């Protein structure tokens, strides 16, 4: 049914359709509306779930670790500092192979304190073993939570999934959303049947010490499972299309007018909507431009990106996060795909924009396309204010 919903409300209702038995979350802007709506659904008796009020994000993550280990589908959401406070537990959840689903309402990381959107928080957790989706709009946010549970709980995967949605832009934006029906979600997402669980009748030890004889195999197994996700996710999105009618291709990347494109921007998240608008405008003027949207950032769909970009002469990679002291994260990985390959873009350039919620406007995107025609290969910050910077104190 089509409804006019705020992004957080829509996501909360999507999560409720997945019927998590345990929800634990600690409020942090801009994630707050999601657990707020969920707690309301629980209080009104519309969702039969244990809502655990906790004293921090570390505790929220620990609660869902424990409840999932006991065989119960669980959910949490956070942002920014909250995600980083969860960090230690997030590595544990992945290491214990627990299929938790978490929403990261993407927000900049302090200091200086900033509650607005960029993607530094979840990018910083990219090595934790969690799969990561970056959604473009509220409809995708709704749908990818359902896909996330299906993927996470697959018995060949058993890994947590983080759905990353841009804070404010998507969490507080309002759109018409086609909300899935409960009977369809039940058909697509069967009840969670754990491979193993903590059970006093049949005790086992989870989280034991794995010394030098055992640890490496646990990490290797997660690495291999991420490759298996690349094969499984297209089947899941195919099923999703059959049940709900919405097509996300293979769920890994989306190409927008790239077939004959001479200049392509690679990006993740809500900014892709802005880029599509600019692509359409420039295409009307006869410019051959396009967009490659990375939906699944972990596992990183190397082969799909290679195929999509191998014939594109010039590629701009737009990061909304940094790896301070090195090249930007998405840029680095896009570059790495083409090392030693015969077919490759002639130019791959790094652009950083929208940190700490600075608007990425149509003009910002046009500037990136324009700068892609220049000879230089330097990394560039878009919409930077040099007047605020000084070389010496």
């Amino acid at each position, binding site marked *: 049914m089509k409804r006019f919903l705020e992004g957080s409300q829509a996501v909360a209702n999507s999560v409720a359709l997945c019927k998590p038995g345990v929800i634990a979350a600690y409020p942090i802007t801009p994630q707050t509306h999601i657990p707020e709506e969920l707690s309301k659904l629980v209080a009104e008796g519309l969702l039969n779930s244990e809502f655990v009020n906790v004293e921090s994000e570390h505790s929220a993550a620990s609660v869902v670790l424990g409840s999932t280990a006991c065989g119960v589908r669980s959910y949490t959401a956070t942002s920014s500092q909250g995600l980083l406070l969860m960090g230690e537990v997030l590595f544990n959840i992945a290491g214990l192979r627990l299929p938790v689903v978490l929403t990261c309402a993407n927000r900049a990381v302090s200091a200086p304190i900033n509650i607005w959107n960029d993607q530094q928080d979840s990018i910083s957790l990219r090595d934790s073993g969690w799969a990561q989706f970056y959604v473009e709009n509220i409809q995708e946010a709704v749908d990818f939570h359902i896909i996330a549970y299906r993927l996470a709980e697959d018995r060949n995967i058993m890994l947590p999934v983080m759905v990353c949605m841009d804070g404010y832009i998507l969490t507080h934006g309002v759109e018409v959303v086609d909300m899935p029906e409960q009977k369809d979600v039940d058909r697509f997402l069967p009840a969670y049947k754990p491979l193993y669980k903590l059970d006093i009748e049949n*005790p086992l030890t989870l989280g034991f010490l794995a010394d030098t004889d055992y640890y490496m195999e646990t990490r*290797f197994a*997660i690495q291999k499972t991420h490759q298996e996700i690349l094969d499984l996710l297209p089947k899941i999105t195919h099923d999703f299309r059959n049940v709900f009618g919405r097509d996300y291709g293979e769920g890994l990347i989306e190409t927008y007018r790239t077939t004959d494109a001479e200049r392509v921007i690679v990006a993740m998240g809500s900014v892709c909507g802005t880029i599509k608008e600019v692509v359409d405008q420039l295409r009307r003027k006869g410019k051959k431009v396009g967009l490659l949207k990375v939906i699944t950032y972990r596992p990183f769909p190397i082969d799909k990106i290679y195929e999509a970009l191998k014939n594109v002469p010039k590629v701009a990679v737009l990061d909304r996060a940094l790896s301070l002291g090195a090249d930007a994260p998405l840029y680095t990985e896009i570059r790495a795909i083409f090392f030693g390959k015969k077919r490759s873009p002639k130019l791959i350039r790094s652009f950083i924009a929208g940190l700490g919620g600075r608007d990425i406007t149509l003009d910002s995107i046009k500037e990136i396309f324009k700068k892609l025609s220049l000879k230089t290969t330097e990394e560039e910050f878009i919409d930077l204010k040099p007047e605020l910077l000084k070389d010496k104190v």
Partner: protein
Amino acid sequence: MFGPIFSKPLSSKNNKTGSWRMGKRPKFLQTNCIACRMCILICPEGCIEGEDKNTYHCDYDYCKGCGNCVEICPRQDIVMIEDK
């Protein structure tokens, strides 16, 4: 793909931590013991047993020789001796 992620309870008993001792081990004199059970509570390995006065002893397969039981005993009824 999965690696080793859980084990059955009590499997850690296969790790004989007694091999960690560095030349000394506690000796339970069993003469002035008042059965306060403090040694049982403080033992990080949980390898001390005993019920009545002067019955307390430890399992040297697991005792790491930390000496906490010696320190906490209110009657100085446990002492560290050369581990031979």
